[in-house]
């Protein structure tokens, strides 16, 4: 057995790391619901395991998603992850062959060059050493990239990178040290014994000309081992916790584990610790661009990890979902933030009993129930257009909230009052089912989201009015005369990123006029700033956000700005000189009777 005292820092560090990781993971698995735990055990013996392994290879090693967003960053992450992984795997194989033993000490592959000076045959003289040197070279380049990213972030197309806390900084410094130290230690040994590859041998020979390698060698190996030890000790308390955790997160996802709609479980702990603090979300956040705000997704998750989260951080967010959209790890930050709000929400002083049985409908049979939503009553042109379309096409409809109705419950949920929202939802569901309609059409994406995801209607199809109008047009019932007006379309967050409705509004608009694309659209569309989700945002800052978003939308100088949400329409109308219209108004103007 090869042994020297310098293997101890590495071995002790690795042992502590493994103990900490296992105890944390066990704790989080216990926090999962029983059904989720069963799902995760069962999937071990199914095809899902292979799917998870494939995705781990693609995302945790190759980092495909980061590549798609930013090629340079993707390359850096890939060489670090895949490089280190191969260094470990090929290193182990090499050491097993060298020792001619299947079970050798865990530190053998790490410090192999120090203990094995014997080079014999093709594999040990050239094969393995060349491969290992190539990987080390890639890792050294990645280290140089990482260091330069800290100081010249513009090279990587980033305006801002994540501000690091001390735990991160120590782990980062030791990570920067690991590969250069391995290179130096291996070169020193190669300089003395000639057991290096093309990189380490060349460097070793050069070092040998002017350095007393014999006395420096042991020190270099000690430093390498200590850097590894430091990295292992700080890993659980730093951003690098994402390296082991993401593997489990991917597996749990494949097993079908999700964050439930009403509370945070151990799964969100896996999500929170999978955040690599890459900082891609920072430049996405509209609030940070306009209001000097510092609770972007990455810092929110950081506060959550350190258990220092304040009410302000969970509430001061538009919940537009742009950070969730860009996140290469796929963490559902919007949902975590939303569920975290329940902890800060007031629980008393809600009484919705008097809303029971306040709304009655006539008994006539209808096909379509139309629910305008609170906001639609503030933008009456939308309801005039929708009821006009219903009448002209002789559709039997019932305007559920014509004389006002109770709220859908989503605004309460957005403020963290999930239990209270349930009371409203129950009553609203009863009202809508009582109409006897087969289709529920709503003009408000906020209502649409909750109707579709949480009301769980058995026999009623829920449609947003843009979907419904597009359907009518496809069926041939609705005919349009297009005109030459130039339009741009603004994707409402609740309809786009939350509900994935991008095409139906575009299809119907293309049939009714000239639709011009804008720079930021579909899942990258900006929030109008009117979001109900942000409680403490002041009117001034809201306007700033709206203006900023509006400038980008109006860049191609259209004749009208079209949106599909009464709240977006109202918010943009406040700051826009160009007319802002809802999709229903546009269709109503251009339909042939």
């Amino acid at each position, binding site marked *: 057995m090869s042994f020297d005292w310098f293997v101890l820092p590495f071995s002790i560090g690795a042992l502590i790391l493994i103990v900490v990781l296992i105890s944390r993971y066990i704790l989080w698995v216990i926090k999962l619901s029983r059904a989720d735990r069963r799902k995760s055990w069962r999937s071990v013996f199914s095809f899902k395991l292979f799917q998870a392994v494939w995705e781990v290879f693609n995302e945790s090693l190759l980092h495909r998603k980061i590549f798609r967003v930013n090629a340079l960053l993707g390359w850096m992450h890939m060489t670090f992850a895949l490089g280190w992984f191969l260094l470990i795997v090929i290193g182990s194989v090499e050491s097993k062959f060298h020792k001619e033993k299947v079970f050798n000490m865990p530190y053998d592959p790490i410090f192999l060059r120090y203990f094995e000076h014997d080079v014999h045959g093709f594999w040990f003289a050239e094969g393995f050493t060349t491969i290992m040197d190539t990987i080390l070279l890639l890792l050294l380049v990645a280290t140089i990239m990482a260091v330069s990213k800290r100081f010249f972030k513009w090279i990587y197309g980033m305006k801002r990178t994540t501000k690091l806390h001390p735990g991160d900084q120590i782990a980062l410094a030791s990570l920067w040290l690991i590969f250069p130290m391995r290179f130096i230690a291996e070169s020193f040994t190669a300089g003395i014994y000639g057991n290096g590859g093309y990189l380490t041998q060349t460097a070793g020979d050069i070092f040998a000309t002017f350095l007393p390698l014999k006395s420096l060698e042991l020190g270099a190996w000690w430093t390498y081992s200590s850097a590894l030890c430091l990295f292992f000790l700080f890993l659980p308390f730093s951003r690098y916790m994402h390296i082991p955790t993401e593997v489990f997160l991917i597996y749990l996802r494949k097993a079908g584990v999700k964050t439930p709609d009403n509370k945070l479980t151990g799964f969100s702990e896996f999500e929170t610790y999978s955040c690599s603090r890459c900082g891609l979300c920072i430049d996405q956040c509209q609030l940070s661009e306009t209001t000097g705000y510092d609770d972007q997704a990455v810092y929110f998750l950081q506060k959550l990890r350190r258990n220092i989260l304040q009410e302000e951080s969970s509430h001061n967010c538009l919940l537009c979902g742009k950070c969730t959209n860009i996140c290469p790890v796929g963490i559902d930050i919007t949902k975590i933030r939303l569920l975290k709000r329940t902890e800060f929400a007031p629980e008393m002083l*809600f009484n919705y009993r008097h809303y029971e049985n306040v709304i009655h409908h006539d008994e006539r049979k209808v096909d379509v129930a139309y629910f305008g939503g609170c906001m639609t009553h*503030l933008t009456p042109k939308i309801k005039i257009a929708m009821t006009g379309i219903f009448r002209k096409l002789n559709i039997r409809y019932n305007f559920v909230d014509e004389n006002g109705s109770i*709220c859908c419950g989503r605004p309460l949920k957005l403020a963290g009052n999930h239990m209270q929202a349930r009371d409203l939802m129950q009553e609203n569901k009863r009202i809508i089912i009582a109409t006897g309609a087969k289709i529920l059409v709503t003009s408000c994406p906020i209502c649409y989201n909750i109707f579709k995801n949480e009301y769980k209607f058995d026999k009623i199809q829920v449609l947003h009015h843009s979907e419904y109008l597009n359907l009518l047009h496809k069926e041939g019932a609705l005919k349009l005369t297009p005109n030459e007006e130039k339009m741009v379309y603004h994707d409402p967050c609740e309809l786009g990123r939350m509900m994935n409705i991008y095409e139906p509004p575009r299809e119907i608009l293309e049939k009714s006029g000239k639709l011009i694309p804008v720079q930021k659209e579909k899942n990258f569309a900006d929030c109008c700033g009117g979001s109900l989700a942000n409680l403490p945002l002041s009117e001034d800052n809201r306007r700033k956000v709206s203006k900023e978003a509006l400038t980008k939308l109006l860049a191609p100088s259209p004749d009208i700005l079209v949106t599909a949400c009464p709240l977006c329409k109202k918010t943009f109308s406040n700051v826009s000189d160009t007319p802002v219209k809802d999709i229903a108004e546009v269709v109503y103007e251009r339909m042939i009777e």
Partner: protein
Amino acid sequence: MKTFGYTIQNDRQIDFDAADKKLYRYVAEKEPDINLCIFCGTCTATCSAAEFKNMSFRKISLFLRRGLTENLKREIESCMFCGKCTLVCPRGINTRNIIFNIRKGIEEYEF
């Protein structure tokens, strides 16, 4: 008929001993916008809850300033948080956040 809250001023002197301004100070610290209110009543006119129940943000604002917490508690319980009052407010007051903080304040001080 909606009552916009203009008829709530019963004959009485403002009683500084009875008025407990703690809640008002709590809310004003969290949302200073409350001081911008001119009691125009637009919020009440648009309120979704006021269709069915006597609920008026204007009254809430007044009760809060006068420290009439008991009245405030009755008034506030039907708010559904839809946010229409915030959108129509001519002074740009974040009324939703005020309601939220009143509820929190009442819980915190256990009125």
